[in-house]
């Protein structure tokens, strides 16, 4: 298959970026999207130019490192996949493919298609955890957890932190990312003691970092490679209301 690629190139954070057009030929339909970019890069190196930088790591859809905005969709034209799991058979021969980095104020471009997503870590650091230290914890079976709650918590916990929800949201809102963590921990008895303080702190950090507000368009849910549901956002809203109105703890 042959493609025309329009790729965002930007030397560094301060540089002005632009789109560059590349032609690429004889790509197997079984080739993954990132392997197609590898082939492009190898040809660029052979032409003595600088290859296109893009984040990637596990290439099996779990590390959350890859993330490209392809033809108007985060992770491209397939549902429930990361960019590394997207295959060229999802495109038509001769298609023009426009590749952009994630766009959001808290995600500055580092180079080409690589963006800085440390904002996600910063939100987790505000309270996306249960404050236990190593050792001194009760037996794993000391507190039974209803299966359906454990399963729901697992669904929320399957977030890979790729940022597609933010990239997809017309407001660049991080509500699904934060909501999934808040929900996971709110569902589990172990997470309850810190629930009220956690949601307040994480939301405050999210706002401070410059993410947009949620307007319930659910683009996040539609593009999440792990199919995390919008009910996580709803649950976070509830936790937030309870924390602000019922709880005596303030931040």
């Amino acid at each position, binding site marked *: 298959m042959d493609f025309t690629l329009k790729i965002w190139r930007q030397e560094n954070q301060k540089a002005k970026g632009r789109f560059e057009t590349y032609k690429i030929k004889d790509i197997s339909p079984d080739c993954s999207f990132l392997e197609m970019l590898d082939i492009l890069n190898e040809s660029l190196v052979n032409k003595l130019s600088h290859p296109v930088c893009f984040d990637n790591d596990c290439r099996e859809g779990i590390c959350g490192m890859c993330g490209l905005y392809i033809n108007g969709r985060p992770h491209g034209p397939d549902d429930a996949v990361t960019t590394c799991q997207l295959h060229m058979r999802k495109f038509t021969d001769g298609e023009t493919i426009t590749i*952009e980095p994630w766009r959001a104020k808290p995600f500055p471009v580092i180079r080409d298609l690589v963006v800085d997503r440390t904002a996600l870590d910063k939100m987790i650091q505000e309270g996306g955890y249960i404050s236990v230290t190593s050792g001194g914890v009760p037996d794993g079976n000391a507190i039974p957890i209803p299966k359906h709650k454990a399963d729901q918590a697992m669904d929320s916990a399957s977030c890979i932190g790729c940022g597609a929800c933010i990239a997809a949201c*017309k407001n660049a809102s991080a509500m699904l990312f934060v909501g999934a963590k808040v929900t996971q921990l709110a569902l589990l008895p172990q997470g309850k003691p810190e629930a009220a303080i956690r949601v307040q702190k994480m939301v405050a950090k999210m706002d401070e970092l410059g993410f947009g507000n949620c307007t319930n368009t659910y683009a996040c849910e539609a593009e999440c490679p792990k199919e995390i549901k919008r009910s996580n956002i*709803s649950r976070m809203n509830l936790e937030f209301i309870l924390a602000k109105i019922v709880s005596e703890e303030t931040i």
Partner: protein
Amino acid sequence: MKLIKFASITKKIALAAFGLFLLLFLPVHLGINLCLLREDGGEWYRNASHFMGTNYIVKVFEIVLLASVLLHIIIAILLTIENFLARPIRYKVATKTKTPFMSRYMIWTGGVIACFLVIHFINFYFVKFDLVEGKYSADMEQVDKHFQEKAIKLQSGELSEKEQASLMAQYQAISQVSMDKMDKNRKNLVNLTKDEVKLYCGEDFKHYEPDFYNMSLELFANKTYSIIYLLVFVVLGFHLFHALGSLAQTLGLNHKKYTPIIDVVALAYAVIIPLGFAAIPLWLMFML
């Protein structure tokens, strides 16, 4: 950038809560409007407007409602600006993500509704505060009583010459009043301009009220207005379509069992309410 110093979720909940007031008010308004269709010469409609215009509890709610409208609009605008600023560099390719119909256009549908509200307020609401001249009605009994009082004063010679002349003019006018200035039950003088009120009821008559019934009928008689009105309610339908489900989402009411029910209710609400409103001009256009 944060234009208002509240947590994003607080703002979102405020937007939803103010919207909720509006959602609750719409059926009330619709109920009153549907009285227009009763062929009772506007009796029910007039009674309902009278109640809404004079009851103190309603007056308190009126203030809450007005505040809700304003805050709903202001917060929505500020949030939209904030959200725009959260992505300083936009994408080149427009989004192809599948999102629920209309959820992306709430600010635009809301804007259309806000514009219509301005027209609506000019047409009706401002008349109440005498900011705009409309049509008025007066209870015949009240007019009669007022006339009798004047007549007694006339007999005891308390009226000035000018007042006497005006009373005579009122007498002449009212004895020749045409049928279209009277309601069906001949209980009220209706469809009066400010001057006509002075003429028929006397210079210092105070007990007249805006005649929303005839003002409505007059507006709906205008085809252009009726079509705009219908279009606005289609837009309102879209706005409402997203509103109720979104409200539940925002207030954290999400439940495996009830969310599907809420979705059905939201859809029903979004169809029935605008349809109810739209029924009135449609009826007037095609049935009468």
